């Protein structure tokens, strides 16, 4: 039983959606952040700009949601571009 319980917990964790959140920082240029969102997520210029403005005005933006493994990869890529990004469990899960 404990093994099954652990497996169930792991499956539940993997199934939980995770958010990739980008936080505002005053050094990164708006044009740079937009370019990074286009490169990392393949977003259109309009969508990337919307997320950039959300980061700029609200202090953070959820730029992507999905599996934990993919979220970790995206956060690593964003850190490679020197953006402040974190992953968070999606609220309500």
């Amino acid at each position, binding site marked *: 039983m404990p093994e099954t319980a652990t497996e169930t917990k792991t499956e539940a964790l993997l199934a939980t959606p995770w958010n990739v959140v980008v936080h505002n920082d005053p050094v990164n240029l708006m044009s740079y952040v937009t370019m990074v969102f286009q490169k990392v997520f393949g977003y259109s210029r309009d969508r990337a700009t919307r997320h950039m403005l959300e980061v700029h005005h609200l202090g953070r933006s959820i730029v992507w949601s999905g599996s934990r493994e993919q979220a970790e990869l995206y956060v690593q890529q964003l*850190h490679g571009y020197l953006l402040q990004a974190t992953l968070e469990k999606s609220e309500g899960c």
Partner: protein
Amino acid sequence: MLIRKWKKKAIEFSRIEQIEAELLKQVPPCCEMDEGSGAESRIFPPPADAAEAELLRDWEEYVRPELRHLFRSAKETVEADLDLLKMKVGRLGRFVVPLEHGESWLNALNQARLILAAKFEFSESELSAFDLPRTFSQRELVLQQINFYAAIQERIIEILNTADNPKGSEED
């Protein structure tokens, strides 16, 4: 200084004055930071909050060395490109770098700006003001240096965007 796309495959830095050359040569040294400093915390931020202890441990062990390698590699690319810049007394400088080095330039300039901003603890309002310096303190001059690097980044981004989107291409 003039920065433009050159022969479709390169970025040309030309009409470089002595002071601009000095500031450009400062990019790689500015990417250096002390261990445990505020600058290091900014360059390597945590990927999640403290509740994700296992992720933070794995990140430290596996991801951080990769990021460190990436940042060092960008810095070394810029360093090698800058070796091409030879200034002669009374003459303006020029050098050309391959277009594919553009991302390394953006990365190294970003490292330099982030590290300088963290070292000198500039506030958001200081960083977003583009006023001319009122005094010539080291702090004011570093802020101008950060803005100079930002202007170069903006120009490289424009060039890379036109490279990705040939319809908006600039003439060489």
